C-alpha cells in the first residue's frame, strides 16, 4: 500500500519535503491551519497567540498536568494566500534547532481530495539532520499517555 504521508529528505541538504493527500475538500484542509481552536486539537498544543495575516505572529505552548511547560514554539507569518499558500517561520523554544522556514502549498486534487506540500528549510544540514533524529516515537507515546490520562479522568 502506498503511504499517504511521504517525507523526502535528500542527504546533504538543509531542507526536506513532506507531502500528504487528504480525503478532505481544500477549504477544510486550509481551515485546519488557520483556526486556532482546530490547530489546538490536531497539534495537541495550546495556541497562545495566532495572528492570521502577513507579518502576524503565533505562539504555541504545551504544559503537563503539573503546569510545567513541556513544549513551546513560535513564528511569524510571512505570506498567507487563502486555500493556496502559507509561508511562515517556526522555532521551537529552548532547543538548539534554530529557526526553520516553512512553505505550505495547498492544492485541490478532486472534489473531496486535497494535497499538502510542506517544504521546510533549516539553517544548516546539521540542524536538519538533528531534527530528523529527534526521538519522535517517544514523543508520540507521550501524547498517547496524556490522552489516556484525560480519558481516565472522564470515566
Amino acid at each position: 500500500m502506498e503511504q499517504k504521508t511521504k517525507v523526502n529528505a535528500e542527504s546533504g541538504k538543509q531542507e526536506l519535503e513532506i507531502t500528504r493527500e487528504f480525503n478532505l475538500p481544500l477549504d477544510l484542509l486550509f481551515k485546519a491551519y488557520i483556526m486556532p481552536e482546530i490547530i489546538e486539537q490536531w497539534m495537541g498544543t495550546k495556541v497562545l497567540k495566532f495572528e492570521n495575516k502577513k507579518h502576524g505572529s503565533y505562539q504555541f505552548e504545551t504544559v503537563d498536568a503539573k503546569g510545567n511547560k513541556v513544549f513551546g514554539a513560535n513564528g511569524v507569518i510571512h505570506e498567507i494566500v487563502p486555500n493556496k499558500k502559507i509561508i511562515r517561520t517556526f522555532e521551537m523554544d529552548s532547543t538548539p534547532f534554530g529557526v526553520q522556514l516553512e512553505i505550505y502549498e495547498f492544492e485541490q486534487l478532486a472534489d473531496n481530495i486535497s494535497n499538502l506540500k510542506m517544504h521546510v528549510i533549516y539553517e544548516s544540514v546539521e540542524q536538519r539532520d538533528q531534527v530528523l533524529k529527534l526521538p519522535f516515537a517517544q514523543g508520540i507515546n507521550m501524547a498517547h499517555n496524556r490522552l489516556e490520562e484525560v480519558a481516565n479522568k472522564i470515566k
Partner: protein
Amino acid sequence: MNLRRDVFQAIADPTRRAILLLVASQSMSAGAIASNFNTARPTVSKHLQILTECRLLEQEQNGREIYYHLNPQKFKEIAEFIEPFRQFWDDRFNKLETIMKKYPQ
C-alpha cells in the same frame, strides 16, 4: 571534537557520495576509485577512511590490493532512520483529517 564518525556526516559530502555510487555495482581497489576523481590520491584515501570508519564501506584484501564494497546493512539503517519522523507526521495528519471530516460545513 569529532567524537564519532556519523553516517549522515559521511554522506553529506558530494565526493563521498560519488564514491558510494562507484562501488555500488562492484568492489573496487583504492587506486581504481581514485582514478575517477581529479582530487589528489591522499584526499580520496581520507574519504575512503571516513566511509570505512562509519561502516558504509567494507574492505577486503585481494592480493596486494585492498578492495572496497558497500555495506548494505548500513544503508538500510539510513533508509529507516526517517521512518519515526514520517510516522509522527502521518499520525498528526490522520488526526487533522479525522477532526476536519466532522467539521460542520
